[in-house]
């Protein structure tokens, strides 16, 4: 147990280190002058340039610069945005939870709908209901996410006028950000019309969640179905049947767990797709999340923001992936056989 935790923490730290190196080197990879990229100031004369280089330690070796960069990251001094002048840490602190919120609801939708459907299709594999579920999920999976989101906007917002077009909540409601999650914040706030605010936030959430969730649901249905069919054909299921166990016993005691174990690592891979899809959909729905924020930063050539934003997003993805994989490693007894962690 401790060895597993230690191994995964080492993996986590090393991956983060590689990411930090890449994020650090971005300053030198961006087009243009390094100093101008980092500070946003084009020095007027050589004295100012020398002073700025000294302040940002550009006169020292790369290793020392990297060391100071790491120090800044850990102490929470992530720099300032060129465009707004607000510390980047605050900006990311607002944008990141919005993205996580959207991704969480989509993942929940994918799990709640996808896994039962996948089990149903897998248990009745090659029947007509299985074919219907499978065809639907393959079709949904093939939709490009931006096209699907646009389609939803076109139908539900513009034609039917059932859902708002963009944003997180109507401007009428002034919700104090505490946790960063809009629904939780509304519940925590002391607005007098909480119910209305909640309803409004839900209506803003629905379309982007469906746009992202549909594709994740489709892939989870397919993964689950395959895994259930594989588990069903194992010799131990035949052995359990010949011991005369009932269908329910076989399903709940043997198929359920064995089909779920291979799904978990595949879901960890889904997280990457999920976050990417979320960032695309955010832009379409003007959702104030990290994806939208990064796109704006790109437009404005806000290099410090890009640097730290990229690090924040990739750290989030890595953290989730490694956590899911570690969880899977802890609950799957047969994986003791494999000595090394695999990502």
């Amino acid at each position, binding site marked *: 147990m401790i060895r597993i935790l230690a191994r995964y923490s080492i993996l986590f730290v090393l991956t983060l280190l590689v990411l930090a190196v890449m994020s650090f080197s971005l300053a030198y990879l961006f087009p243009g002058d390094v100093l101008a990229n980092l500070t946003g100031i084009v020095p007027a004369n050589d004295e100012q340039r020398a002073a700025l280089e000294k302040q940002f330690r550009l006169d020292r070796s790369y290793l020392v610069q990297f060391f100071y960069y790491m120090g800044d990251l850990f102490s929470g001094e992530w720099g300032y945005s060129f465009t707004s002048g607000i510390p980047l840490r605050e900006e990311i602190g607002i944008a990141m939870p919005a993205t996580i919120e959207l991704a969480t609801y989509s993942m929940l939708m994918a799990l709640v709908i996808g896994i039962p459907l996948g089990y149903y299709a897998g248990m009745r594999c090659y029947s007509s209901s299985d074919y219907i579920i499978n065809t639907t999920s393959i079709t949904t999976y093939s939709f490009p996410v931006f096209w699907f989101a646009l389609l939803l906007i076109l139908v539900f917002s513009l034609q039917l006028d059932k859902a708002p077009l963009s944003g997180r909540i109507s401007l009428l409601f002034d919700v104090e950000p505490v946790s960063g999650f809009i629904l939780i914040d509304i519940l925590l706030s002391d607005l007098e019309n909480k119910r209305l605010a909640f309803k409004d936030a839900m209506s803003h959430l629905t379309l982007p969640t469906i746009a992202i969730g549909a594709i994740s649901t489709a892939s989870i249905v397919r993964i689950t179905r395959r895994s259930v069919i594989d588990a069903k054909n194992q*010799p131990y299921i035949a052995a359990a049947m*010949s*011991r005369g*166990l009932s269908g329910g*016993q076989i399903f709940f005691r043997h198929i359920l767990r*064995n089909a779920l174990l291979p799904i978990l690592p595949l879901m960890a891979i889904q997280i990457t797709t999920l976050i990417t899809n979320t960032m695309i959909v955010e832009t379409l729905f003007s959702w104030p999340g990290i994806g939208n924020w990064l796109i704006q930063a790109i437009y404005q050539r806000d290099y410090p923001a890009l640097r730290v934003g990229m690090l924040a997003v990739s750290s989030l993805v890595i953290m989730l992936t490694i956590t899911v994989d570690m969880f899977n490693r802890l609950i799957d*007894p*047969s994986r003791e056989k494999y000595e090394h962690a695999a990502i």
Partner: protein
Amino acid sequence: MPMLDIKNLTLEMHSSEGTIKALDKVNLSVSSGEIRALVGESGSGKSLIVAAICGALPTEWTLTADRMSWNGDNLLGMSAQQRREVMRREIAVVFQNPQASLDPSATLGEQLEESIPSEFVQGNWFWQRAQHRKKIAISTVHKVGIKHHKHYLSAYPHQIPADIGQKFMIAMALVSQPTLLIADDPTRGMEPTTKTQILKLFTRLNQTRSLSILFVSHDLLAIASMSHTMTVLYAGQTVESGRMKHIKKRPLHPYTKALLDSAPSFRKDLPPKSHLPTIAGSIPTLQHLPIGCRLGPRCPRAQRACVQTPVVRKIHDHSYSCHFPLHMEKL
């Protein structure tokens, strides 16, 4: 009357090259209280017969039989529910590969406890019943010769050696107190001492509880020492069956004779360092089965008539299917 009575069991697999008869008119019966050995090379269809009896065959294969009855009830005509009841209470199976036949995500104790039929468990409340279940599990595990029950009952299948896994399979089969035990190569991969232990256990159960055993194996020495009757199988056809001592003394079918000759322990006249007698060739694959008697191309006594499948002939309780049997001149 035999408990398990199978007559002309035929199993057809459908492939792109047409249908293949993996089992061709197999006859097998197990009487109450006897140990019947089912012998054959690998690939002769022994495990298919076992799977056919317990109904674990894939549904896309066609299984037909003139008679396949269990205590007079037709096994093929039963509903899935009735079949399940029979498998739960009366027939128990030990499969060939314990590592694959045990659920990798559940402990051995859980799997053993779920095999206990609920009428054996005493107690009104669930904790009393769980306790009693555990007690039954421990005593069964001791019975098959596993000493460290604490360690093994909470172990997962990948953590145990193969022979313990095989013993667990036997324990799971015995815990429902069946009347027929089908043991598919139960001593595979065991050391001689453990093997003897298991065979002794089988013999004892047969004598004290009059448990009938269908013993599937190619370990002729073990079979000869414990079984009463024997059925020899070659490439999906029954070749010869009868009482063990008759077959051992005077095999009628050339294949049975070759099989017995190839086991050094049955030959006292074998000179040291000499080759064991064998018949040329190897068992045909399912795609290239010969017509008629499937031993035909390899048989030393084959003649033109052998392209037709020989009918089953019987002398008392010794039946064989061969056109030109051995020892017939004397009879």
